[in-house]
């Protein structure tokens, strides 16, 4: 293969692994938004706490990969549960900007908490399985990145099944579509909100166990990820799982290509430029119905 072809395929592979990570975070965010109308800026920080737990349990406590992954999921889900019960639940009737601001504050508080408890030193996952690289010609993909691509597809498949098959899944979709109507037919909205937060927490914990082997754990790891995922969620249509999913992969791959072929300076601006274009052309996002302004007024 010629050099430009190798570079192109490598960039697409890089983008695919990025997109998988965005997808797990963005889908969690959009679920929470759909059900609770909360822009959860602390979502990436749930993942960060879980990532630290994952690395510490795996590297220091000698737990195996499955147990450490399970612990990451339990921790992220517990955090999401506590935040829902202690903070968001009290703000459902407040204007959108209130819960928004509360989530921003939580994000800072969680990061500061991790720095106080764990001194904020970044951690990496070591071990031979980490440095395994799958190589086809000159195209390289590391074991952890391949795991992230496969792992996020498994999780998203399971989520799709949960949302379409089970009673709770149907209820979640009903609440996302129309809060009031769902309540009128007897869906216990409060419980659905808790289940959705738990679900988003599980996804964040799963994401942590896939991201930590690639990037390690550090207090600020959730910040840019959450901001970009928020842009994906808005562009994909607030509350739309399909929109978030497609948006995540589109952003991951276009970021890699823009950085590789146009300019690195532009890479991180891309998500937000795309967002601005979307809001101008389709105020409801790819698959959304209402506009962002409408959602925030609710």
């Amino acid at each position, binding site marked *: 293969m010629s*050099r430009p072809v*190798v*570079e192109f395929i*490598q*960039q697409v592979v*890089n*983008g695919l*692994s*990025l997109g998988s990570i965005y997808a797990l975070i963005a889908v969690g965010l959009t679920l929470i938004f759909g059900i609770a109308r909360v822009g959860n800026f602390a979502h990436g920080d749930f993942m960060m706490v879980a990532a630290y*737990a994952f690395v*510490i*349990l795996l590297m*220091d*406590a000698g737990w195996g990969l499955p147990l450490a992954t399970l*612990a990451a999921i*339990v*921790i992220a889900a*517990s955090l999401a*549960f*506590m935040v829902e*019960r202690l903070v968001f639940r009290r703000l459902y009737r407040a204007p959108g900007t209130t819960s928004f601001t509360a989530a921003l504050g939580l994000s800072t508080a969680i*990061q*500061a908490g991790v*720095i106080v408890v764990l*001194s*904020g*030193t*970044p*951690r*990496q996952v*070591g071990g031979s399985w980490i*440095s395994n*690289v799958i*190589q086809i010609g000159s195209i*390289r993909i*590391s074991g952890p*990145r391949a795991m992230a691509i496969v792992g996020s597809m498994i999780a998203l498949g399971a989520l799709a099944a949960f949302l379409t098959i089970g009673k709770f899944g149907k209820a979640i979709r009903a609440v996302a579509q129309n809060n009031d109507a769902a309540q009128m037919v007897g869906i216990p909205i409060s419980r659905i909100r808790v289940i959705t937060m738990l679900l988003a927490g599980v996804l964040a914990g799963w994401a942590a166990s896939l*991201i930590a082997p*690639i*990037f*390690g754990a*550090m*207090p*600020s*790891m*959730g*910040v*840019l*990820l959450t901001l970009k995922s928020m842009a994906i969620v808005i562009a994909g249509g607030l509350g739309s799982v399909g929109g978030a999913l497609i948006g995540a992969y589109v952003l991951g791959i276009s*970021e*890699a*290509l823009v*950085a*590789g072929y146009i300019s*690195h*300076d532009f*890479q*991180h601006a891309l998500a937000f430029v795309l967002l601005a274009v979307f809001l101008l052309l389709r105020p409801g996002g790819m698959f959304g119905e209402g506009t962002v302004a409408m959602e925030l007024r609710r």
Partner: protein
Amino acid sequence: MRRTSRLAGVLGILALLIAACGGGTDATTTTAAEATTTTAGGAEETTTTVGAPTGDPIVLGGIFALTGPSSFVASQSAGGIQLAVAEINAAGGVLGRPLEANVQDDQCQPAEGVSAARRLIEVEDVRLIIGAQCSSSTLAIMPVLQELEALMINTASTNPAITEQGGVGGNPWIFRNNPPDSAFAPAMAKIMADQGVKKLAVVAVNDDLGRGAAEEFRKALQVHGSDITFEHFFSREGQLDFSSALTEIRESDADAILFVGTIDPGLPFLRQYRELGLTQPLYSRGLSLTKQLFDEAGDVANGLHSTEPYYVEIDSPENQRFIEAFRAMHDMDPVYQAYTAYEAVYLYAAAIEAAGSTEPEAVRAALESVTREAITGTMTFDDHHQAHIPVYVARATCEATCRVEIVGSDDTWGNR
């Protein structure tokens, strides 16, 4: 009731997990405590001969990025200040009064830096400050010092503009005891040229540190007929992915890579460098060659060069004593920002003693002529309020474990 018990259950699980996580760190906490006891014993001997300081404490302010992606360096700087304060107090204090530190967080952000400086000066009445950590923040604070007539010794920012504006440059309130990038870059560029680097790829943090360092390296490389052929500036706010930049470098004709940034982005950068199978040798400005780095990065650090004004490998009795005291207090090896912050406290102590006062104007005049025999050399401030301690270039060699070797130094930089 049911809700409460469920919440209790979750809290219980969390508590168990935290306890499990804590298991690994228990050992270190104990050693730290034991170690502290030993130094305290040593300190007692001194106090019996000198007499404990009395009266109102003299408060030194600190501004460091205690939270955010540069918090490791901040903990080092604060650690250096803490050690010097403890040593000076054990030896009788300054003007017979004890020293105290008040360290504020600026998250490496200029706006936060300015508000931390105003809080220290206007609210807490602390006018002798050490900081800030990040160049962008220091540059933003400098006009505030001038406006409110407060002093700051900078110990960790490397943008050359700080020196250019200091002293006769227009701002008499800023001093700096760590070298600027205009000192680091020529020392490193010489080593690069010796090793045959012609085309350098730079991956640097997108702020006054990264942009300033890239500029200085370009100038320094051109002296040797080499140049920067690729630049990638990454976001300071938690950028984790370097794969597209590294892919481009891999497919380019760059024959070496310079990384400018701290350990937080550094670790994922090094990991992805290995994943993508790059082979160009690595150089860094900002990554300290420490146990923390080697423990987490592993053998990818093999061959990594860095340039700093201090290494634990500097072989002198003064350095041994400093390292042991720092380890005893903080249970980690010092990096350069701990050393320069430590010396800044001693510089203030000497200046306050010489001035016989803590008034900023008097201390400022005294600092201009103070001489401090620091660990790596004599610290005196030139007319731009810049101290000239040597800069070093070191290389990591990793087999089973990593060791660091100093391969170059320059103690004549910036002689005006």
